[in-house]
């Protein structure tokens, strides 16, 4: 059995230079030495959780080739994506597909919605004629629980956000990629429409072996998908592993705060107000490269060691890793 990972993110670092007004150039380190991988022998759902400034979108864009790493590598089936020949790259772009957050911005409003499906079929020469093309479109729409007659012939603005996101999944169904990069795909659609989208992702994994990197700030949605989790904080991984293991026993102080901040949807399980003054809990994006642990300025358990060098990711066993000196 081939054990080459499907996707490897190897020490990925991305630094953006920004102009800071009249004071000249500054730097923002969006990603700092991020490493993780997806196995090659089984389809995997990996949820990347992080708040704003965590770098999760930068990772997505880097995988899609929309950002060039400052250092580090991204390898697909063992091959560095920046060193692929044109043929290999084209193949890569077919095997790795994306669903973006905004169901409104993805579509050209002048074209009927099915055009995105037609383009795929025609570009990859998937059909022998208009008749078969329409059959394929209908099959793809049914696979994402849409009724063809409700969708075909309509313009994007005539569909709901949830329907538009599912048409994106229909497009993915046609392409049968190995990997889906989903960047906050349900954040902008109504709550009652989210479950359908998420279930399709689960079905795609089960029925067609598609892996998925699911980026979200909503931990509850990620939990529903199960699989693996990576928690990002200001460009670094602080904790990773099996979703159930990490959520039920978070070790990193940041993970603990994150999980405790998710509002339980149950009035019988309310947050208790301890009356303590609320600390300014946000992490400001720093313009300098941080020495030491990314969370040390907010961490109630920070030790002197935490200011010296960033803690490495330690394996706790049981598919659970954490980057924190508390566990050294």
């Amino acid at each position: 059995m081939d054990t080459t990972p499907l996707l490897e993110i190897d020490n990925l670092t991305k630094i953006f230079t920004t102009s800071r007004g009249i004071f000249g150039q500054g730097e923002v380190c969006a990603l700092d030495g991020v490493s993780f991988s997806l196995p090659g022998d089984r389809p995997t759902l990996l949820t990347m959780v992080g708040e704003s400034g965590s770098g999760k979108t930068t990772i997505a864009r880097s995988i899609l080739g929309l950002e060039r790493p400052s250092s580090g590598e991204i390898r697909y089936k063992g091959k560095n994506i920046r060193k692929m020949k044109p043929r290999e790259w084209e193949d890569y772009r077919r095997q790795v597909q994306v669903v973006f957050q905004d169901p409104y911005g993805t579509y050209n409003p002048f074209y009927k919605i099915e055009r995105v499906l037609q383009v795929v079929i025609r570009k990859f020469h998937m059909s022998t004629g208009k008749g078969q093309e329409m059959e394929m479109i209908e099959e793809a729409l049914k696979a994402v629980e849409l009724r063809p007659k409700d969708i075909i012939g309509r313009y994007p603005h005539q569909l709901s956000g949830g329907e538009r996101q599912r048409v994106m999944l229909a497009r993915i169904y046609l392409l049968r990629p190995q990997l889906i990069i989903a960047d906050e795909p349900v954040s902008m659609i109504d709550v009652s429409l989210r479950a359908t989208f998420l279930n399709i992702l689960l079905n795609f994994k089960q029925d067609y072996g598609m892996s998925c990197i699911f980026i979200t700030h909503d931990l509850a949605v990620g939990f529903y998908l199960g699989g693996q989790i990576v928690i990002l904080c200001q460009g670094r991984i602080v904790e990773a592993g099996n979703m159930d293991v990490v959520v039920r026993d978070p070790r990193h102080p940041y993970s603990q705060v994150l999980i405790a901040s998710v509002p339980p949807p149950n009035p019988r399980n309310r947050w208790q107000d301890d009356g303590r003054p609320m600390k300014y809990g946000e992490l400001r994006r720093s313009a300098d490269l941080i020495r030491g642990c990314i969370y040390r300025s907010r961490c109630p358990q920070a030790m002197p060691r935490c200011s010296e060098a960033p803690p490495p990711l330690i394996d706790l066993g049981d598919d659970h890793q954490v980057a924190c000196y508390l566990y050294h």
Partner: protein
Amino acid sequence: MNLLEIRDMRVYYRTTRGDYRVVDGVTFDVKPDEVLGIAGESGCGKSTLVEGLLRLVVPPGHIESGEVVAPLLAKDAGGNSDLLSLSEEEFRRIRWQQISYIPQGSMNSLNPVMKIEDQIIDAIQVHQPMPKAVAQRHVAGLLQTVGLSPEVAKLYPHELSGGMKQRVIIAASIALKPRLIIADEPTTALDVTIQKMVLQTLMRVKEQLDCTIIVVSHDMPVHAQIADRLVIMYAGQVMEIGEIDDIFNDPFHPYTQGLISTIPALGRERTRLHGIPGVSPSPSELPPGCRFHPRCEKAMTACHSVEPALREIRPGRFVACHWCDEMLR
């Protein structure tokens, strides 16, 4: 005595294609000192409802009909206690002093070239002129109430994070000790750790000021955490009203049941969630009878043609549903 009695509120948008009935016959009460949640998905009319209450609807929208009776708030308005029929001047006095409003995305509306302190003082001076030094002390106190250091007063908005800005907005909204605060999607677009802080700030503010809060949000877990009662809206109308525990643990209306069962929860046993099939109707193409019937698995014959009335099916529990009427009578 209720704080607000909203009766048959309708806000329509008049277009060349006919009326968009965005709020179409909404009735409920707001009790003093409660946290009332208004929940519903995009397009249900909850934000427009609030704009209607505050008389902030702009053309082509207009208040088609309705009454907002508020005897406790309209004390000085010469015997007339329907907020919608007060003169513009009389209502202006109530707005901000008695009722303050935190609109959706308001933290992005802070004036970038004014210090925080000056912006809040501006708002105060319009309604309650006072010497600048007094106002500055007042602002420092307000900032502390929302858990911000008084130094924030001298900062500019770009120097604050999203959560800090949202708390500044809350501070400004309580400057005149209002009787009622209406917050529209106060936690949307904020990081989850900041959401919790903002919600806890709102709760502390409520306790300190002894006021009433209306929270509009599509985010059901937010209501679970802070609301006492919940109003569920769909396609411009009220589907269900009840105590928060009842709504979450024993929802009556099929739409409410669908909403509750579709919420993913952390740590819960993993079973397949089901969304509600179909989509909400556009306000210009409303189905006959019950607006939810095309998506409802409990739909009966009457639902296709007769609009169900909002009925008090148990004390304090209101439902607009023929099936519920049948099952629960």
